[in-house]
């Protein structure tokens, strides 16, 4: 029987497809509005501050701060159930976007994480894209 797999994003999705396309090259991208300089994330075709459509893609350095997290002890999804306990977190990238991801590279997520701690992106490669996970620096 096939191993249960991580639910993956769809690279064809209209707004966020370009984000996932860039992950192939391990680029963590976000948009900034040319007119009002607002950071737009998740990606869209329009600015969430002024509704303008002149957005420019930028690449994050991939470092940020742990805004908040939870350690999931119980999940009904076969892939995640096998990985519990695992950490889900909102991470504030240094450039401004807030991204939801997992924290990896630690023995016991129930003991080793603290809000405010510094994190760096770590890519998990899949056939058509890569998933940005984060590891404490």
């Amino acid at each position, binding site marked *: 029987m096939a191993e249960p797999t*991580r639910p993956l994003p*769809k690279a064809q999705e209209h707004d966020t497809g370009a984000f996932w396309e860039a992950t192939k090259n391990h680029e963590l991208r976000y948009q900034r509005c040319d007119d009002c300089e607002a950071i737009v994330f*998740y990606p869209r075709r329009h600015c969430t501050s002024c509704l303008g459509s002149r957005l420019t893609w930028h690449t994050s350095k991939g470092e940020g701060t742990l805004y908040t997290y939870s350690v999931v002890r119980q999940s009904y999804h076969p892939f995640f159930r096998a990985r519990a306990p695992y950490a889900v977190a909102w991470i504030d990238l240094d450039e*401004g976007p807030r991204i939801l991801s997992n924290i990896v590279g630690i023995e016991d997520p129930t003991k080793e994480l603290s809000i405010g701690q510094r994190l760096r992106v770590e890519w998990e490669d899949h056939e058509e894209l890569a998933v940005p996970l984060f590891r404490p620096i």
Partner: protein
Amino acid sequence: MNSGQKRDAAIVGIHEYPSRDVEGRFSPLQIKAESAAMALADAGLSARDVDAIYDAGDGGGMAGLGISEYLGLKPNVIDTTMVGGSSYEFHAAHAKRAIASGKAKVALLTYGSTAHSNAFAIGVGGHGGGAGMPGPAENMERFCGMTLVSNYAMVAHRHMHEYGTTSEQLAEISVATRLHAMRNPEAVEAMRALEFMDIRETSIQDVVSSRIIADPLHLLECCMISDGGGAVVIAAPEVARDCAKPPVWVLGGGEATKYPENGGDITTSAAAQSGPLAFGEAGVSPDEIDIAMIYDSFSITVLTLLEDLGFCKKGEGGSWVEGGRLRFDRPSEGPALNTDGGGLSSNHPGMRGIFLLIEATRQLRGESCSQVEGASLAVAHGNGGMLGSRHCAGTVVLGRD
């Protein structure tokens, strides 16, 4: 009551479907229909009196249409606002508006769900994976396995970090609602039907020593998943005056949205926007409220909403709830919380906003199992969606004559 208050519309009929486990024998639509009949009977009205239908689509098919055909109604106002658990607070406020504008005289709100039976049928307890194209937000988030509980737990963690809130303080909410549940025979029966391990009053120690589901939230800080439903009838003043039970006036309503924003504050919910709108329209301040019917999907939901509704300052909810303040028998210390036992210990079929209106009405009629003596003002606040990411807020202020 303040003289400026507008008594445009009143809750005149209520019904809470008693069973929390229908064992697959009844459909959501059947629960809605039975509840509608009972609520209309409670009001002393008939189906022929209903000219406005409010429906969140929980019966399946096209919202508003399916329920009208099923009940044989031909309403003049059809409102299909679907904002999860807050839908019914939106419906109550919209019914007040429709009645005040002369578009309708008798509005019917119904809810039916077999969430518990369904979970057993599919054997996983919720969260199916859709095969179609996800929306943009979902496409950014679903890879990381954020469960429902962990979504709320992330609010709790940040709240603890910023304000020093403790698990013991959050447990106060679970303890107060369980105390109220043990006084409500339908809630006790619900816990039996859902095979709760230990059906008794709980202590703070019980809550914080129950197992952690998603840090920092424990099992006894999480709501049940039940079957259930109910109905509410809202009528114009000239109808309400002749109804079987005293009217419970819909004095004010507020609604709002909240979603993740870069740099945003996860500890503040949409209630911070909807609350002042509702209290403002009602001409009432939070410290006048006797009964706080607050959406208790999780302990942290209540703590956050109490702060955002203005019962205490942001960040002070933890110390504010300490010492049993939320119990029904401490009226001098502020409002009683979820006197039916709430979603934590009585009834949570997925969208429990209708029960907030129902129990608030019981209190203002003097019919609650944990009656607050002389209760005259209540707030019902529904949170639909997820507290830690995107949700809607519906606040309704209710008062008796």
